[in-house]
């Protein structure tokens, strides 16, 4: 059995998961901080 498709699949699952989590965490933090700063400046 050729192991490389399995190795590739395992790395792909990991890198896609970490990439999506990075984007989600960065976007939610940045947008929440921007909204909080905008509210503070409005007061």
């Amino acid at each position: 059995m050729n192991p490389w498709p399995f190795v590739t699949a395992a790395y792909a699952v990991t890198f896609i998961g970490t990439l999506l989590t990075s984007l989600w965490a960065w976007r939610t933090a940045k947008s929440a901080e921007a909204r909080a700063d905008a509210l503070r400046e409005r007061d």
Partner: protein
Amino acid sequence: MHALANPRRFLGIARPLTPWLFWSGVALIVLGSLGGLFIAPADYLQGDSFRIIYIHVPAAWLCTGGWTGMAVAAIVQLVWRHPLAAIAGRAIAAPGTLFTAIALASGSIWGRPTWGTWWEWDGRMTSVLILFFLYLGYMALARASVDNEESGGASKVTALYALVGAINLPIIHYSVTWWNSLHQGPSISLTGGSEIASSMLWPLGLTVIGFSLWFSAIVLLRMRAILAETRIEARQRRMARG
């Protein structure tokens, strides 16, 4: 530790620290993965399929390490009422769930060419699957039961849930010695005597440290998001009251 109890002081440290942790983590993950995929020699028994170890072991370490962090945060929250500990517990849950899913998926993918099966209901795999469901339960409970809306942290019930769930951690760790299992026993030891050749071990050190730094960066980003959302909700409540 109490010096960091002030969210403003915490943010002053967390904001500049986040990109350093993130990018140094990414660099080590890339270097370790390249070393594991193309430089480390193939295993004499498992061949090239052993290369999955370089992502599976960090994922397994971080899924149990993440819950350990949540349990410690729960103790700090319940005993010392540290507001950031409650937020840290909530922040760890998402990357902890991700790494539990990666540990399960990469282990299953490794199992097919190595053991001839995708899944076996043995002690190690079953206890990690239970950990995955515990993480999902924690996130649902944390979202549904924020004790103090001013703090944004996990509720006391959620903190207790994290402590009770920690019972699963020694079960995961000792499952391969307590019960017969397809999963191999421990082959890496922090106190020396690792059974893996150093030519195969160094990329693993890089990916373990790299994913740990990346995990820390994501936890800081989640804490920053929760703190900002809490500030928004508090300000909106004040504005609604006039």
